């Protein structure tokens, strides 16, 4: 066991998968010579050469669409989108090609690729370097959407994504890169896609979150525990297809739920989960399904007080939990 940061876990996964499988290659902006703007691909150009660690021009359409083509003819591309805010030009290729290739070809052609997307706020990034934007993709069947919260999951989920036969969008929260450290096994391991993790068992209420918000929720749940409130904390890990069984069973057990996401409330994955809870386990509920999300504004504003105002935090989550418990 060795203690690694979140970003070291990502670099290790890339390195190990490239060593294991020569079909795996990386492409993206500033990922080669520079080693990535956050250094996720540091050292990989020297180790694997320019044919497998490709510095692309500023061409997000091509990064996405070119990866689709390479995946179709036997490669395992791992493109990087430097900031989730810059993924918009890729949308056409992600939605029309990456997500639909297997479907529209009747399964003749598949798209085994893993798009790494650096995302998230609480770093003073402003409007165009802070969005998570996973909400745009969770409504597109054909895509797998994951967002790890721990170094162990960051490594294990990335390996599963690269080894799998489906197109994955892998969101990595930049606030976690160097903040979260964890001891992880040195041997090869994977984390299954599609399975949530119950991080803390509890009986009074279920709190569901992912990414950075998992850590904010953990802080809230630990504080609540000191007040004698037993909350069950779920880290979704995979957002599409999400783990219905784990979440719905937990809600059936606790009868109360708070859903936490960094992205805005409207149109996010938590709306879908809330609707499914209402649809399928309504009889078990003792209180309204409640969401704590980023506020419904176009993007994360820059000035620190406004950025923090935008984001959910432990206090907001704690207040929401208490309100649901008092219902």
């Amino acid at each position, binding site marked *: 066991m060795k203690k690694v940061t979140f970003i070291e876990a990502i670099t290790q996964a890339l390195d190990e998968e490239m060593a294991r499988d020569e079909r795996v290659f990386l492409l993206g902006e500033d990922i080669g010579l520079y080693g990535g703007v956050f250094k996720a691909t540091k050292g990989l150009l020297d180790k694997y050469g320019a*044919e497998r660690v490709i510095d692309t*021009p500023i061409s997000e359409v091509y990064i996405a669409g070119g990866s689709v083509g*390479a995946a179709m003819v036997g*490669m395992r591309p791992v493109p990087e989108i430097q900031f989730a805010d810059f993924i918009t*030009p890729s949308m056409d290729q992600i939605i029309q090609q990456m997500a639909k290739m297997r479907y*529209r070809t009747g399964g003749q052609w598949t798209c085994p690729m893993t798009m790494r997307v650096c995302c998230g706020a609480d770093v003073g990034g402003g409007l165009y370097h802070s969005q998570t934007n996973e909400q745009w993709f969770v409504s597109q069947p054909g895509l797998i959407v994951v967002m790890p919260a721990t170094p162990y999951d960051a490594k294990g989920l990335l390996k599963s994504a690269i080894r799998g036969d489906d197109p994955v969008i892998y969101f990595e929260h930049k606030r976690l890169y160097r903040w979260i450290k964890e001891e992880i096994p040195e041997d090869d391991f994977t984390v299954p896609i599609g399975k949530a993790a119950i991080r803390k068992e509890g009986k009074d209420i279920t709190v569901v979150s992912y990414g950075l918000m998992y850590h904010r929720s953990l802080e809230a749940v630990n504080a609540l525990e000191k007040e004698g409130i037993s909350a069950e904390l779920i880290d979704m890990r995979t957002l599409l297809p999400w783990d219905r069984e784990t979440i719905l069973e937990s809600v059936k057990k606790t009868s109360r739920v708070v859903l936490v996401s960094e992205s805005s409330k409207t149109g996010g994955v938590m709306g879908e989960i809330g609707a499914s809870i209402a649809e399928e386990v309504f009889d078990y509920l003792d209180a309204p399904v409640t969401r704590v999300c980023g506020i419904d504004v176009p993007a994360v504003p820059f000035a620190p007080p406004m950025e923090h105002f935008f984001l959910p935090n432990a206090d907001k989550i704690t207040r929401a939990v208490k309100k649901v418990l008092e219902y």
Partner: protein
Amino acid sequence: MPANSKTAGKTTLAEIGLSEQTLLGLYTNLLKTRLLDERFRKLFRQGRFAGTYFSAVGQEATTVGPTYGLRDEDIIAPSHREIGANVTKGVPLEVIVAQVFARGNSPDKGKSHPCHYGWRPKGVITPASTVAGQTIVGTGCAMAFRIQKKDNVVLAFFGEGSTARGGWHEALNYAGIYKLPIIYICQNNLWAESVPSTLAASITNFSDRAKAYGFPGITIDGNDVVAVHKTSVEAIARARSGEGPTLIECKTYRWYGHSEIDPADYRAQAELESWKKKDPLPRAEKPLMDLGILTLEKREALVEQINQEIDAAIDAVEKAPYSPPEEAYNDVYSEQFPVRREEY
């Protein structure tokens, strides 16, 4: 525009620069494409299949010429008017017909719209309707071939209208930097649905666009199948040997509307008539007749044979069932992630 009559008027194979087999092969594929395409138009008007139909009549040489002689593992990255590339690549007629009829035995199982042909055994990518989409994806295939050290090539087909899209430029820019094994075939048929090419770009020859990406751009008479084939063969050889992409602009014309529901009343009848005089089919036929390779009798027999093949394919396909509706749930993900069945 290079005058086709120069080649058509020549009477020896040496002067044309192609073998008898190639000249006849090109013609046969043109003829087959034309007969099948006209048949589909008729079948659509009879209500025999759903959706609409995108005819390529008039511009067949632009797809037959480049595709003739390719290997199975070479990739075709098409749009919706590449019936000729499918025929020439050797996709069986029954597979092509099943796709148009959206039957369960279509390679896409009926999921894609008519004319979105795709068949993996012959390297044809089932296209998306977003034009130039496959130009980008095809460039990615070429990127993979480079990494894999394979000498396969990709033919990407698109209309002149598609070259206004940003992603098209990103793909060609990338292909130029890495000298990828891809040939970009621009079918300049003067009309992007209803928008004239003069409103698609401020240049006359769309091949000029290649200059910006550092590889050759060539404009040719797209209705001269010999010229299209010979130009493509050179470009393909360059691509296979690692010398990079070529943009070939084929000047051509589509005789009918964007699809069968488009009367194409935005363009002048005189323009259509002038292009009909440049029909690629009789132009491909003339040297064969001049050289005695083809006779009227032989042509009759060839038409008869192709029509019988088409009849047989249609008969077989029309008897075939659609996929069961629940097929809609399949091919979303690998077997690891089955889609949840809804019960209402």
